[in-house]
């Protein structure tokens, strides 16, 4: 069945499973932190169960098998509540499972074949469960777990089940996979030891089941040990639930539901809510019809009279439908279209013929249109903004793993998780952050003993902070460790031949900047996580892709902080367009300090024939764009063209171009892979006249 409607089903599955996995990871790490794993057992059990149910439905056996044994483990913990357990073992096992799920689901997402089975892990978990059981009650009446692997459900003896319920579930319109969700509900209840009749009966039949659930809701009649409260609790946790109705019924009613539900299967045509009312002989059917009518009446009531209730219900609905999942590709497309719109708007309103006419009414309408287009653009940008919270939360896991493996106690403090950045950017910062945090723990923080000696609390603190500063987002990774060792870094860099000037000439900041050079690691021994000297330059490389930079600050014995400065968005920039011969270039306006005509007396040429220019007593090097990129132009005299002073970090330089054309909003497009990387050019953009200009990249030009 997975083959028929492949895409939407698998997408839903992948999406949901990822969410569950993330939730699970967070729960387990939080609970470990607060030393209260017991509290999370139920939640973990539930998530494992949902994962299992979904995976079984989709026939991803390797995932469901693993989820199954993990679920067993937690079922045991949940029901027997054994004392004196070493929870770190269990946490590790769960995290291992999480990793396995992640791998597998990623494979599914990428349509790769899933090769490996989790047999080893399953064995570990089964062993763990066995040992737990052994510890608790050496003589267990049944060797439950092993058999559970082959999945047989033990239904308690009948006479114990004495509560009967009718349950009707409505899913949200948008939730999709209703049948799978229903299946997992039934499956869950099975494990509670309930006896169930449900309608529609055949949940695996795609069309029938799905439609019926969509139109009529999912109906259950159950015979259960649990009381109404417990059931309510259970059902309320079901995701995407819109309406829930639980009624206690008598045994007769229960039986009649069983019959009528089965009957529906044979009369498949009756899919409408209104069932035939006429000639009903059997009491079973009558009961069911009465029920339906009652329900209909209820709905009618809600619709007409009970305005109060209705308002509440509606409100709830509005709240629930606030979010929708959108394919990123669609957003990208929308973004591109808006970009085109911005450009074509300029094409129309800046049309020279039209300008000559100077008609006030057109100018007025044009201004109005521009305003709207700007708003559209802003809104589209906003849609693409995603809070950093998810990425930050993921770091908890890294901190946890690292602190276990390095035997250092670490607290991760997260600040500003709500800060939003473009979706494309988020994808590029997770890895750098991971590196930085590993580095901070492995290199930055001292061991607890060392910390004690210097009078710091034994527990180290790593702070991960995000903040908005104008056009940039700053992400700061800070530790309160030993700080960077200037001498060590500079000696190492000297040995590797990375120094470009005498050691004395290096400022502290420059020295710290050296840690981003490839091949430099001051850690003597290479550990599993860091010390190879590849991490930090990888961080910078990844950041470069999104136009970000990294700055290090450090104070001896106080700690180190690395600040990542990342542009808020990549898509549209305000740029100054200038030309060199027939070629047009754009510089982001924020990097331009000033532009001016050079005077002969200010131009200095040093002994190496490098040109420099004096501006208010300061000397800046001149970069001739036409020479740099081998372009043809008639303007080669520095006095004829124009100087554009640009600033990047602490460096300033003057670009020499023919002339400035004006300030434009340009839509950034990256080059096709076919174009080889050009130092100093980060991409290109459309101009209003359909032409293309190249976007200069200040750091690339200056270096």
């Amino acid at each position, binding site marked *: 069945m997975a083959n028929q409607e492949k895409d939407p089903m698998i997408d839903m599955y992948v999406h949901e499973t990822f969410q569950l996995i993330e939730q699970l990871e967070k729960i387990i790490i939080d609970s470990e932190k607060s030393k209260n794993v017991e509290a999370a057992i139920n939640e973990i059990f539930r998530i494992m169960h949902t994962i299992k149910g979904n995976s079984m439905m989709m026939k991803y056996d390797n995932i469901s098998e693993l989820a199954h044994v993990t679920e067993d483990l937690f079922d045991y913990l949940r029901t027997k509540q054994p004392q004196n357990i070493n929870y770190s073992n269990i946490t590790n096992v769960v995290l291992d499972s999480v990793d396995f799920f992640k791998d597998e689901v990623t494979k599914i997402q990428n349509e790769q074949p899933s090769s490996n089975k989790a047999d080893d892990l399953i064995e570990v978990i089964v062993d763990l469960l066995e040992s737990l059981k052994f510890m608790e009650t050496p003589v267990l009446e049944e060797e439950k777990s092993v058999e559970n692997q082959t999945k047989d459900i033990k239904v308690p003896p009948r006479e114990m089940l004495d509560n009967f319920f009718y349950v009707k579930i409505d899913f949200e319109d948008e939730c999709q996979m209703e049948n799978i969700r229903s299946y997992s509900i039934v499956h869950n209840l099975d494990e509670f030891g309930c006896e169930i009749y449900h309608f529609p009966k055949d949940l695996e039949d795609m069309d029938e089941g799905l439609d019926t659930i969509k139109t009529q809701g999912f109906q259950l009649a159950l015979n259960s040990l649990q009381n109404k409260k417990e059931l309510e609790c259970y059902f309320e946790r079901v995701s995407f639930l819109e309406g829930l109705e639980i009624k206690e019924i008598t045994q007769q009613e229960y039986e009649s539901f069983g019959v009528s539900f089965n009957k529906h299967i044979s009369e498949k045509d009756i899919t409408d809510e209104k069932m035939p009312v006429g000639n009903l002989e059997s009491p079973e059917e009558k009961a069911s019809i009465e029920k339906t009518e009652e329900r209909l009446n209820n709905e009618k009531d809600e619709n007409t009279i009970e305005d109060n209730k209705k308002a509440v219900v509606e409100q709830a609905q509005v709240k629930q439908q606030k979010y929708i999942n959108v394919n990123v590709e669609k957003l990208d497309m929308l973004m591109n279209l808006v970009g085109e719109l911005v450009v074509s708007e300029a094409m129309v309103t800046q049309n020279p013929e039209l300008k000559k006419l100077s008609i006030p009414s057109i100018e007025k309408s044009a201004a109005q249109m521009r305003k709207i287009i700007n708003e559209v653009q802003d809104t589209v940008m906003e849609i693409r903004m995603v809070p950093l919270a998810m990425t930050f939360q993921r770091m908890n896991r890294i901190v946890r793993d690292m602190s276990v493996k390095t035997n250092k106690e670490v607290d991760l403090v997260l600040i500003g998780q709500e800060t939003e950045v473009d979706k494309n950017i988020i994808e590029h910062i997770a890895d750098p952050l991971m590196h930085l945090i590993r580095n901070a723990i492995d290199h930055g923080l001292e061991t607890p003993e060392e910390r004690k000696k210097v009078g710091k609390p034994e527990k180290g603190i790593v702070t991960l902070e995000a903040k908005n500063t104008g056009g940039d987002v700053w992400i700061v990774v800070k530790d309160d460790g030993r700080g960077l060792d200037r001498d060590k870094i500079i000696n190492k860099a000297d040995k590797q031949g990375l120094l470009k000037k005498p050691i004395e000439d290096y400022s502290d900041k420059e020295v710290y900047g050296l840690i981003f050079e490839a091949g430099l690691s001051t850690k003597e021994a290479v550990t599993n996580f860091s010390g190879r000297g590849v991490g930090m330059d990888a961080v910078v490389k990844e950041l470069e892709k999104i136009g970000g930079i990294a700055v290090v600050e450090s104070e001896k014995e106080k700690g180190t902080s690395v600040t990542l400065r990342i542009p808020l968005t990549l898509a549209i920039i305000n740029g100054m367009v200038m030309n060199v011969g027939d070629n047009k270039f754009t510089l982001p306006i924020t990097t331009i300090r000033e532009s001016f005509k050079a005077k002969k007396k200010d131009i200095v040429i040093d002994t190496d024939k490098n040109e420099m220019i004096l501006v208010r007593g300061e000397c800046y090097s001149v970069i001739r764009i036409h020479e740099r990129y081998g372009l043809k132009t008639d303007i080669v005299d520095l006095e004829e063209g124009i100087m554009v002073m640009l600033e990047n970090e602490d460096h300033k330089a003057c670009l020499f171009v023919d002339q400035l054309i004006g300030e434009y909003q340009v839509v950034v497009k990256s*080059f096709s892979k*076919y174009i080889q990387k*050009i130092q100093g*050019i980060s991409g290109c953009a459309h101009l209003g006249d359909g032409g293309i200009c190249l976007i200069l990249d200040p750091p690339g030009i200056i270096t």
Partner: protein
Amino acid sequence: MKEKEITPINSYDHNQQDAIDEEAQKNLTFTIGEEAYGIQIHNITQIIGIQNITFIPNQPSYVKGVINLRGQIIPVMEVRTKFDKPVIEYDDRTCIIVVNKDDIYVGLIVDRVSEVLNIKESEIASTPTFNDKVKIQYISGIAHVNENVIILLEIDKLLENE
């Protein structure tokens, strides 16, 4: 590809076999100077006239720059230069063939686009060793159709940067 069991001249004899539906591939043929080339049609997105090309610095000589094709920015390369042939001025028959290989779009600048030809496998001879002007590595075979010789190009190889 079959061995050279078929001599160039007898290609016409295969007309009667058309009905048998021999494995035939559609090729777009174009010329550069006197020579005719063919590329498989399924790689081709569209054919456009010559456009304004924006120069991109620091590229191999045959990469002429980028064009703006309805909002999409597409690099263009001159097949002539790639094959080390003398440069000529573009005229109104100069065309850009936009090809798509693994979602990378590249425009090929050629002198003239000729036609779409069905070329049967039996008409294709494997790569010979003559003609040092065109580097053999780009060639997937030589086809003889209606007494014309068409050099079939391998798109993947053609798009590889040196």
